[in-house]
C-alpha cells in the first residue's frame, strides 16, 4: 500500500470524526499539502457522513424556536449589514471617544500656539524694554556729558572754510560727545571716522567711531569708552574713510582740533 493509499483510507473515518489523534494529525498534515485527490475525496466523505443524519428519529422543533430565531434574525437584519456584529451604540461610543480625543488634541495645539505667541510677545517686550533702558541710559549719559560742569568743551575746526566746525564735550569719566550741523553727506561708499591723536610723539592715531550724518546733515556722536587720561590725547581728528573704516587714516582730516 502506497503512502497515498494509506491516507486515502483514512478520509472517511476522518470525516466521521473517528480517527485517533495521531492518525488525525498525520492526515491533516497530508491535507495541508493541497493534495487535490484527497481534498475531493474529503468533500465526498463529508457528504457521505452527513447522510447518517437520516438515521435520527424524525422530530420537529417547536414553533417557539422558530419565532425566537426569526425575531433574532430580523433584529440583526435591522441593525445593519456588514457592521451587524457591532451594535450601533458601540459605534456611537467609539465616535464620541474619537471626537473627544480630536477636540483635546486640537485644544492642546491651540493652547500651545497661544502660549508660543504670548512667549514671543513677552520676549519682544523684554527686548524692547532693554533697548529703551539702554537708550535711556545713553541719553542720561549724554545729558550728563553735555551739562556737567566737569565736562571740557572745545571745537574741531574744519579744514575747509565753508564747512561748519564740530562741537566737542569731553567728560573724563562719562565719555565724549561730538555734535555737528549741516555737515555734507559723504559718498555712499564712504564714512566719517573719528581719530584720537596721542600726545606721545610718533604714536599712531587711534581709530574710534564711524558714522554718517542724517538727511539734514546733523549728528550727535558719543564715545563711551574714552582713554582713562584725557591728557594722553593731544587732539581729535575726523577723516572720510571707505565704508567699514580704516585702521589708519587714509585721507587728510576734514576736522582737526586740539584737546585743551
Amino acid at each position, binding site marked *: 500500500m502506497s503512502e497515498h493509499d494509506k491516507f486515502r483510507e483514512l478520509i472517511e473515518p476522518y470525516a466521521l*470524526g473517528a480517527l485517533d*489523534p495521531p492518525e488525525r494529525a498525520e492526515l491533516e498534515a497530508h491535507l495541508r499539502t493541497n493534495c487535490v485527490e484527497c481534498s475531493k475525496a474529503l*468533500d465526498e466523505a463529508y457528504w457521505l457522513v452527513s447522510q*447518517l443524519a437520516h*438515521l435520527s428519529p424524525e422530530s420537529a422543533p417547536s414553533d417557539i424556536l422558530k419565532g425566537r430565531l426569526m425575531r433574532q434574525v430580523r433584529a440583526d437584519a435591522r441593525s445593519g449589514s456588514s457592521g451587524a456584529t457591532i451594535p450601533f451604540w458601540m459605534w456611537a461610543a467609539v465616535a464620541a471617544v474619537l471626537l473627544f480625543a480630536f477636540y483635546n488634541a486640537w485644544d492642546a495645539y491651540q493652547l500651545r500656539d497661544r502660549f508660543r505667541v504670548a512667549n514671543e510677545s513677552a520676549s519682544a517686550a523684554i527686548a524692547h524694554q532693554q533697548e529703551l533702558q539702554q537708550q535711556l541710559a545713553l541719553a542720561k549719559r549724554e545729558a550728563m556729558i553735555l551739562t556737567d560742569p566737569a565736562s571740557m568743551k572745545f571745537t574741531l575746526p574744519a579744514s575747509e572754510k565753508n564747512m561748519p566746525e564740530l562741537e566737542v564735550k569731553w567728560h573724563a569719566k562719562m565719555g565724549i560727545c561730538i555734535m555737528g550741523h549741516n555737515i555734507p553727506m559723504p559718498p555712499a561708499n564712504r564714512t566719517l571716522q573719528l581719530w584720537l591723536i596721542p600726545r606721545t610723539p610718533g604714536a599712531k592715531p587711534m581709530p574710534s567711531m564711524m558714522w554718517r550724518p542724517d538727511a539734514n546733515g546733523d549728528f550727535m556722536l558719543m564715545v563711551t569708552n574714552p582713554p582713562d587720561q584725557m591728557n594722553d590725547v593731544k587732539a581729535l581728528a575726523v577723516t572720510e574713510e571707505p565704508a567699514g573704516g580704516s585702521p589708519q587714516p587714509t585721507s587728510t582730516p576734514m576736522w582737526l582740533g586740539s584737546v585743551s
Partner: protein
Amino acid sequence: MFLAVLTPTDFPSVSPDATLVQGLLRRDVHSFEQLYDRHSRVVYSLVLRILRQAASAEEVVQDVFFQLWRNAAHYDSARGPFLPWLLTMARNRALDQLRLKGERQRRHEDQVEELPPVPVAPDFEHSLDEKRRSARVRSLMDALQPKQKRAIELAYFEGLSHTEIAESMKEPLGTVKSWIRNGLMRLKEGLLAP
C-alpha cells in the same frame, strides 16, 4: 424510486438551497425563513439524537441557524450541496455541546427524555425527498452487521474515536476500524447505485 438521493456530483447546478443562500448574502430574511422551513426538521432531529434533550437541542439549532444567517458566505456551493454542509455544522455544534456540558454522563444517569413523535408535513415534495432519503439510508445501514452499524453510530452520534469505540464495545481496535471503513464504503456504494 430513490432518485431524490443527491450525490456531490449529480446535484443540480443551481439548487433551491443555493438560490436561498444567495438571498442570505443579501440579508433577505424571507430566504432565511424558507431555508429554515426546508431543513430545520432534519437538523433538529440530528441534534436531538445527539443531545437527547429538547431544550439543549433547540438551543443548538437556534445557534446553528443564526450562524448560518451570519456566515452564509462560508458555504461554497462548488464543494457540495448545502444540506450536508449544514448537517456537518449542526453535528459539530451538538458534539461540542455534548462534550462541554458532560451530557454524556448525565444522559446515562438521568432518565432519558421521551420525545413525542412529530408529524412530518406530508404535502411538500421536499419532505417526500427527505423521507425517501431517510428510508434509503436506514435500509442500507440496517443491511450492515448490527455491531458494524453500532460502531458507526457511536462515532457519528456520540463523537467517539476508534479507540473509544473499541473500548466501549470491547472489540479489537483493528476490527472496529474495518467495520467503520467497510460500512461507510457499503453505504456509499448503496447511495450512488442507480
